[in-house]
């Protein structure tokens, strides 16, 4: 293999060698190389296959816009598909695989697509879909599937860490070329807090790629001096390897820092990437400009690349793109490539200039004026060119320049549209306001001196801009040339998506004349490079085809992200175990000791059942129910929301929040409360207790705890600010356990201090402050969700496990069992108590059978709207019980209710089953349902139809209270 490494020059460290593998073959390069430059230096020009036609492809660019040289980098869990070889810093041990080829890059069967290329013309997806279905399924889809897809993702977990971080600054400078450096230096010297970010590993931007002269020295030397000075300033932060990918509201910029993409594996203490949010008082976009290709036949054959890329490989990486070069340009900048390559000792055959006149310095290279390249020969490497006048010229590399596009992406992220500039033939940025300045080449300034002056102005936060160093300018002139129509071969516009120049007029002829439609129809600009190279050419060709100006056609919308950002960076540390916090109740350890099975509900881990050897969940829950109803059980209810409400107007405030009244509640008593939304629908429920005249403790459902708190804050601060009340969430401060069953009182009596528990001292709905276990402060409530004689005992969180163990010990002689939320749920369904399934955001108090709770004597949230005719219609669906006619049948939650004999239809629908349970007390499945006018239909036999599971049984509508209708057990 021939070496294409130049014998001298470049910003590579020739004293060190780096070993790397590409498609299994071993190569070496040097520190300072990219994967692309190292491959070029090793004579590897074929780096990938195109998406649709599987054409052989080499690099086109030396930077972020690269559409062709996409590789799968690294292996195993660290594999990353579609990485640009031009942006990958070479490191020892790097491995990369080419994409889109089978069985090998060199011999690719998919290239047959190229022969069937009429199939892949613009809009082929749409057209193909119209063909007979069998044709599509058997022939086209398999071919497209085989051809489609870029790299493949790893199926292993990414072992590396990612971070998120914030930064604040007076001035953010995006890009470290001449403009950015001058801006950062000016602001840095004034003492401002400056962040200078650049996507490259080495700062300096275009100064690293070009042979410039600043301040009597080389551009690189000037850049290094400025960077050293910036590095010494404590108020300046340099962020290399950082792509600023988006501009957002509030002058916030998103950035991805590739902290450790340039090593084989990050140290265990460092992330691979960091996702930044940079909040900038002011920012400068100094992103430079992107060179454009020209559309001519074979403009994608390896060896054909942008003129600026070719000289970058030579100047910065000491890698020659070929042995014999032809330059094709429509502007002066192409001449630099001819001069630079010649200076590096590479033969330059000719400059083909589409213009008939030019003053640019060709450096002794022959110039063919007014001529254009029609076609490039060769397949896997350029082999000569044919001009539009049929002249042949031998060469193995072609440098092309179709002009420059200012990199305006970020400037357009907040909706601004760029404007066409006829002088430079490029879109220039819109007005971005005073806090975001676009400067230098990104603003369409094509001369180095303009860039330096622009940077100095942009970096001046107050006062007058400083003088800028003297430099040598390269004149810039350009004449339009988008497409050489004499070409025979395919002339590519969007390399990655294989859309060609001919596709655009075709799209226009077929009616897709708008740029946004043409984009989608031809897929131009829709690949991972988002049309960085091709879009302006596409706009120009579409403009010609539709007889419009560039301005009239306009651009497609620029959106973040400027370049692809890895999912790892977005996820940051929030994955796996850290995806969301885990809330454990204060009784978690106690429940765990007893073998609880925990189920995630929201963020909470709730003890759901306590299986004995060989029991499944239903067996365990059923046993727990029976034991509780026959003896005594204890259940962790700490997840219920608890809100402490205090103040002179605490009662008045609760009267506003609940539809029933709390200001009249006696001290030492609890009351069930129902909260409505302002539209009259039930919002939440729970018991609230009065501990003192000016002190209440509310409970909310587990699910609504946080929402109710926010609602209270709104009600107080926005609606009733005159009320003298404060409230704070104490959910996590209290451990709370339900102790239920005929032996509940006897059990608790053993641990409560100095209180003879009876129906007088602790009546139903009592709420008392007591102590337990010789002095542990506690709250004792006589409440029942199970329907049994029951209590809830609350103790400060840290005492929870100890007190729960003590209750177990006290209840031991009675045969106490721990029960979980499954048993709790069975018991509440047996008792017809409503919960989440019924409080589902569609039901009113009356629907739930709680209509009498609504006070008519006071104003409260939801009062007025609850009176609307639609919410008081007697035919509304209301809560009833449902049970199978044949006790062997099972009814399922979600089933719809149909009248006997009706066929399933929306019109015939009578309601649905909200909650079901296996009742160990009744030995059958029971449920609660919402059924139209249900209270008047007790005893009616209906169909319980489960269309989802294809299941239908006959059921009977009944009273929601399935068990102990007289509530005898409650007071037993």
């Amino acid at each position: 293999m021939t070496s294409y490494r130049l014998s001298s020059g470049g910003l590579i460290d020739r004293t060190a060698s780096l070993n790397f593998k590409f498609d299994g073959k071993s190569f070496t390069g040097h520190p300072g190389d990219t994967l692309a430059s190292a491959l070029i230096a090793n004579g590897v020009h074929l780096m990938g296959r195109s998406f649709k036609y599987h054409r052989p492809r080499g690099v086109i660019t030396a930077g972020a816009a690269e559409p062709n040289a996409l590789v799968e980098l690294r292996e195993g869990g660290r594999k990353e598909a579609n990485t640009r070889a031009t942006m990958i810093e070479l490191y020892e041990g790097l491995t990369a695989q080419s994409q889109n080829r089978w069985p090998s890059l060199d011999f690719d069967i998919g290239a047959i697509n190229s022969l069937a290329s009429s199939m892949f013309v613009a809009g082929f997806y749409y057209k193909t879909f119209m063909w007979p279905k069998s044709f599509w399924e058997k022939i086209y889809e398999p071919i497209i599937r085989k051809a489609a897809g870029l790299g493949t993702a790893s199926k292993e977990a990414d072992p590396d860490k990612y971070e998120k971080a914030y930064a604040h600054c007076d001035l953010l400078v995006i890009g470290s070329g001449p403009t950015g450096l001058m801006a950062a230096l000016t602001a840095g010297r004034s003492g401002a807090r400056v962040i200078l970010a650049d996507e490259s590993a080495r700062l300096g931007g275009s100064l690293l790629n070009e042979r410039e002269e600043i301040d009597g020295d080389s551009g690189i030397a000037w850049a290094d001096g400025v960077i050293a000075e910036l590095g010494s300033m404590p108020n300046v932060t340099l962020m290399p390897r950082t792509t600023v990918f988006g501009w957002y509201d509030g002058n916030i910029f998103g950035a991805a820092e590739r902290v450790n993409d340039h090593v084989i594996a990050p140290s265990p203490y460092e992330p691979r990437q960091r996702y930044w949010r940079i909040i900038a008082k002011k920012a400068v976009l100094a992103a430079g400009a992107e060179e454009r290709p020209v559309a001519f036949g074979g403009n994608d054959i390896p060896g054909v690349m942008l003129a600026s890329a070719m000289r970058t490989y030579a100047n910065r990486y000491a890698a020659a793109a070929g042995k014999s070069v032809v330059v094709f340009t429509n502007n002066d900048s192409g001449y630099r490539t001819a001069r630079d390559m010649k200076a590096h000792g590479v033969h330059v055959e000719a400059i083909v200039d589409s213009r008939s006149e030019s003053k640019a310095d060709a450096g002794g290279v022959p110039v063919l004026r007014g001529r254009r390249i029609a076609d490039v020969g060769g397949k896997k490497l350029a082999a000569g060119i044919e001009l539009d006048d049929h002249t042949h010229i031998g060469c193995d590399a072609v440098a092309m320049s179709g002009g420059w596009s200012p990199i305006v992406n970020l400037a357009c992220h907040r909706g601004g549209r760029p404007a066409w500039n006829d002088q430079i033939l490029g879109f220039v940025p819109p007005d971005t306001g005073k806090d975001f300045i676009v400067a230098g080449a990104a603003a369409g300034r094509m001369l180095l001196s303009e860039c330096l002056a622009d940077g100095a102005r942009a970096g001046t936060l107050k006062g007058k801009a400083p003088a800028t160093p003297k430099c040598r300018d390269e004149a810039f002139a350009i004449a339009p040339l988008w497409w050489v129509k004499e070409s025979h071969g395919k002339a590519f516009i969007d390399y990655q998506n294989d859309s060609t120049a001919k596709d655009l007029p075709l799209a226009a002829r077929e009616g897709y004349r708008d740029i946004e439609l043409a984009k989608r129809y031809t897929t131009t600009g829709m690949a991972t490079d988002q049309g960085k190279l091709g879009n302006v050419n596409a706009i120009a060709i579409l403009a010609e085809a539709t007889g419009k100006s560039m301005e009239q056609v306009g651009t497609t919308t620029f959106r973040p992200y400027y370049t692809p950002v890895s999912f790892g960076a977005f996820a940051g540390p929030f994955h796996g175990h850290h995806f969301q916090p885990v809330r454990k109740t204060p009784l978690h350890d106690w429940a765990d000791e007893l073998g609880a099975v925990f189920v995630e509900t929201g963020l909470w881990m709730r003890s759901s059942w306590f299986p004995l050897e060989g029991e499944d969940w239903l067996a365990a829950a059923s046993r727990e129910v029976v034991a509780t109803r026959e003896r005594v059980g204890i259940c962790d209810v700490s997840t219920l929301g608890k809100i402490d409400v205090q103040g002179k107007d605490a009662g008045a405030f609760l009267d506003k929040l609940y539809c029933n009244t709390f200001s009249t509640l006696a001290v030492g008593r609890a009351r069930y409360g129902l909260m409505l939304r302002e539209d009259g629908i039930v919002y939440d429920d729970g018991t609230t207790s009065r501990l003192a005249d000016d002190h209440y403790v509310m409970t909310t459902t587990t699910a609504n705890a946080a929402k109710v708190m926010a609602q209270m804050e709104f009600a107080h601060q926005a609606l009733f600010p005159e009320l003298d009340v404060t409230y704070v969430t104490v959910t996590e401060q209290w451990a709370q356990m339900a102790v239920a069953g005929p032996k509940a009182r006897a059990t608790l009596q053993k641990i409560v201090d100095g209180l003879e528990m009876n129906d007088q001292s602790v009546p139903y709905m009592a709420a008392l402050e007591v102590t337990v276990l010789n002095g542990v402060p506690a709250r004792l409530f006589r409440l029942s969700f199970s329907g049994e004689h029951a209590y809830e005992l609350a103790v400060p969180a840290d005492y929870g496990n100890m007190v729960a163990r003590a209750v177990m010990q006290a209840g031991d002689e009675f045969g106490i069992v721990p029960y979980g939320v499954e048993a709790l749920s069975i018991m509440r369904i047996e008792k017809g108590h409503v919960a989440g399934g019924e409080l589902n955001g569609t039901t009113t108090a009356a629907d739930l059978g709680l209509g009498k709770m609504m006070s008519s004597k006071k104003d409260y949230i939801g009062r007025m709207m609850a009176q609307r005719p639609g919410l008081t219609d007697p035919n509304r669906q209301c809560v009833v019980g449902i049970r199978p006619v044949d006790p062997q049948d099972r009814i399922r939650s979600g089933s719809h209710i149909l009248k006997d004999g009706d066929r399933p239809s929306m019109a015939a629908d009578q309601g649905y089953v909200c909650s079901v349970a296996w009742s160990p007390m009744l030995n059958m499945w029971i449920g609660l349902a919402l059924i139209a006018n249900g209270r008047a239909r007790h005893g009616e036999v209906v169909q319980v139809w489960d269309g989802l599971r294809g299941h239908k049984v006959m059921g009977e509508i009944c009273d929601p209270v399935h068990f102990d209708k007289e509530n005898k057990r409650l007071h037993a």
Partner: protein
Amino acid sequence: MLIPCPHCGTRPVEEFTFLGDASVKRPASNDPSSMEQWYDYVYLRNNPKGRFDEFVHHSGGCRAWLVISRDTETHEVFGCVTVRDYGKTKGGKA
């Protein structure tokens, strides 16, 4: 977007929860004749292009309900006051 909380200073929008139009006012009357006002209060919200006052809860911060005045098109923030102070200025100026 950044929101200048009068208690906490300038904080990122992720800390806040929006509730929309702050011009609505809960009717004082429970008389059936006020029903039209109640419908408006519960269901009618402005959603203009341009300057707009909105309820916002500093749910990830000081827990205060605030009124932010911002441009819905450019997202420029003009001011932010507590809902109590907003109420005091009558007609509202955040």
